[in-house]
């Protein structure tokens, strides 16, 4: 009974041991950062392709984009990553390195959500804007680039940042295929030090430090946008 309440029996935090492996955490954080930036960059391309396909007049393109988005939005990312790493090589008959499988699935996954965000932002712009741009002689792509996109980006940005914040955390699922990102490295440090509490606390602080500025920026931006409206 007294086990929980007595001071000397309480968990003794020891960050010193874990701090010995700080370079491993930093390496993990750097890897997390690289996969985030990589998958967001490629995801933007997939998202734009999906959005423009969904907005196109060609039904085949619309169906293709819709199928892509629904498949990736309606299955868990962890399942997608495992599938790409273990099942896809069996179908294709070639080995897929874990970094390719991981980056590809993270990008496709975030791209499917970006697609909806981009499409929503473009659709939110009054059709009179496109008409006014066409009326001065601009082509469809010129109207999109100079008139619609600059306004749509403003509307998309809060949802885009939100999705990107989730994306940073989603990279932690790469631990399942042994990619040395922050969560995997925490696992490694824990294995070496037997200090799970400290190891995962350090990881949590690192994720937080990476993401908190981003969410603050999103809030600031949203406030500013509301003012300018």
């Amino acid at each position, binding site marked *: 009974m007294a086990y929980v309440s007595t001071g000397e029996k309480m968990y003794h935090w020891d960050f010193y041991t874990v701090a010995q492996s700080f370079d491993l955490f930093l390496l993990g954080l750097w890897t997390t950062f690289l996969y985030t930036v990589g998958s967001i960059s490629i995801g933007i391309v997939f998202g734009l392709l999906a959005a423009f396909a969904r907005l196109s007049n060609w039904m085949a393109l619309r169906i293709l984009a819709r199928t892509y988005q629904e498949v990736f939005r309606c299955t868990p990312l962890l399942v997608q990553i495992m599938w790409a790493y273990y099942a896809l090589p069996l179908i294709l008959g070639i080995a897929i390195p874990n970094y390719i499988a991981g980056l590809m699935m993270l990008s496709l996954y975030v791209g499917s959500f970006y697609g909806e965000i981009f499409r929503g932002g473009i659709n939110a712009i*009054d059709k*009179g*804007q496109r*008409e*006014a*741009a*066409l*009326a*001065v*002689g*601009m*082509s*469809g792509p*010129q109207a999109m680039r*100079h*008139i619609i996109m*600059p*306004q749509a980006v*403003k509307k998309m940005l809060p949802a885009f940042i939100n999705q990107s914040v989730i994306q940073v955390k989603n990279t932690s699922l790469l631990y399942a295929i042994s990619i040395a990102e922050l969560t995997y490295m925490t696992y490694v440090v824990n294995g070496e030090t037997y200090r799970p509490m400290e190891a995962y606390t350090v990881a949590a602080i690192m994720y937080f430090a990476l993401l908190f500025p981003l969410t603050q920026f999103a809030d600031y931006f949203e406030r500013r946008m509301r003012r300018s409206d």
Partner: protein
Amino acid sequence: MTEPNAIDEDKKMTDTQDHIISVRGLTKSFGALQVLKGIDLDLPAGEVLAIIGPSGSGKSTLIRCLNMMEILTTGSFSFRGSPVSTDFRDKKGHIGAGTLRGKVGMCFQHFNLFPHLTVIDNVTKGPMIVLKEDKATAENHARELLEKVGLLDKCDSFPSQLSGGQKQRVAIARALAMRPDVMLFDEVTSALDPELVGEVLEVVRELAEAGMTMVLVTHEMAFAAQVADRVIFIDQGVIAEEGPPEQVMVNPKSDRLKSFLTRFNG
């Protein structure tokens, strides 16, 4: 081919070249609904043409066909004697829709200014992108036009900081910046508070007096009667009556036009 026919052909060509816009047998359908049911219309240089008619008669659709904002379902369309194609670019003796829109300025009921750009950028955007004018040239021209519409002091304002009447005057300057041959006004005062209508009509009147070829879709009957050289009354997708304003608006022939005008004159 006999000699007289050849002369006829020549004469027809000259006729259409005198007209800035010429449409024959224009129909426009949206799905199963046929809105315009065969319109023939010539617009000579310098003419001010007013289009009147009840709501849903097709007058807005007609003016939107005149810069290919709506693509004709059937019919022919020529601009200064050259046929206009539905493709954006010019090709093989056809003027493309893009070129046409550069030559035919349009102002909308809801202004449709670009909210992310300042007043002067709203005016310079078209010339810089479409006509490839350099910034200095485009801005000088924009300032002249904004001065003409009385808004030179608003160059650096954003559209959200302007009144409805000011927005519409900027929209007129934006269309004029393309140095159009014709201006189309689609119910440009319908969305305005009554006290702001006058300032916009004044700008339109000045343009008319300066000799600009114009087409106005309007509910301002008194104004149409004053500035228009010709009035057409559209009813159920066809031109039901046309002629000089004193004829169409003072001595209407058809009962439908009579009852339409009575509603406006109270």
